[in-house]
């Protein structure tokens, strides 16, 4: 099992954890693997299987949750109050998602048209950076459109104040970005965001929290692996023999094909 394969399996197995803990665990293990020198020990020898490693973290999280819950119950004598609170939170959550989705609608640009002059190399406001290897995109309350181009570079155009391109990742917050990715695997994490993906040309791993994902697949076939929780996910034609994989984990999110409206 290679490093990226191990990390992909670990991410999947950690889905029971809260987002921050999961991100920290993955980044930490990823860094450790990257720093390892060659020896006879496999990743399984070192870490155990991804599922077993993740199981330890999930078990610890459950222990913390149980403690928190029992304390809360003792203090507040929860019962009906909890149900009312959960109901209220759910209503607010649904209203929030609806508002976010509504606010990102009404765009008259056809994102699937990669020949559009707005996306040409000479257009003002575009930035570029040489890039090889995997890309991580983290979007928070953002709107982001992702394309792939056949170059070893990351190219982007953002409107908004908070976006940052670091060593291995791009952070986008409260901004609207158009991004061209290199031909390497991409990992996308979106929280309360709208993400549009146009014809992926590499494996993509997408993790959604209260977000909307639109995927323009065109005539390209993909191996889809989709897990959802409290989400509305459209049917995507899965081709098990397709060379490219699209993995989606969706929580309280909307996943649908992209069509220019």
């Amino acid at each position: 099992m290679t490093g990226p394969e191990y990390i992909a399996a670990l991410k999947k197995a950690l889905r029971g954890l809260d987002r921050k803990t999961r991100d920290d665990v993955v980044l930490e293990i990823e860094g450790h693997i990257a720093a390892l020198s060659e020896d006879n020990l496999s990743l399984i020898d070192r870490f155990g299987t991804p599922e077993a490693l993740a199981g330890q973290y999930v078990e610890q999280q459950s222990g913390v949750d149980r403690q928190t819950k029992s304390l809360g119950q003792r203090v507040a004598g929860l019962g009906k109050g909890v149900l009312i609170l959960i109901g209220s939170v759910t209503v607010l959550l649904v209203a929030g998602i609806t508002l976010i989705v509504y606010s990102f609608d009404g765009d008259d640009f056809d994102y699937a048209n990669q020949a559009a002059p707005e996306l040409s190399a000479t257009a003002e406001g575009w930035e570029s950076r040489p890039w090889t290897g995997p890309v991580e995109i983290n979007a928070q309350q953002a709107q982001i459109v992702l394309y792939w181009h056949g170059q070893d570079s990351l190219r982007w155009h953002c409107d908004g104040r908070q976006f940052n391109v670091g060593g291995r990742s791009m952070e986008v917050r409260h901004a609207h970005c158009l991004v061209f990715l290199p031909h390497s695997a991409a990992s996308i994490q979106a929280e309360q965001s709208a993400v549009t993906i146009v014809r992926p040309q590499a494996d993509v791993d997408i993790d959604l929290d209260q977000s909307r994902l639109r995927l323009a697949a065109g005539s390209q076939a993909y191996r889809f692996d989709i897990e959802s929780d409290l989400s509305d996910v459209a049917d995507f034609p899965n081709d098990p023999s397709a060379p490219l994989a699209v993995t989606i984990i969706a929580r309280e999110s909307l996943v649908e094909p992209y069509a220019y409206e």
Partner: protein
Amino acid sequence: MIDPAFEKWQSQLRKGFLELCVLVILEERRQSYGLELLHVLEQSGLDVREGTLYPLLNRLHKSGWLESNWETPVDGGHPRRFYKLSAVGKNQLAPMLATYQANTASFERLVQGSLASLSRALEAQETPP
């Protein structure tokens, strides 16, 4: 084949002991990250695998005994998660060490007592009536 009950006992014994070792290292070094901790433990003669160390760090962190922060090496590369003792962790370390040392001393007295009894029994067997 190893007895599963023995494995469980070994694992339980090791768990608390390793936690203490990690806290001691962090007290001494002020802060450290996973790979470095692993090397220090290895140099001390403790064979610890990543699959044991990282969940242990997470457990201590969740307990509030450790604090952590991310730092990117000056020469670039992957960011490292550094751990250090929190105020709670520092307060816990002294009684933990005291408990461990008291237990070790008691155990040594027990073993010495057992050895003395065993030695007397052997002498009695060897002495002709």
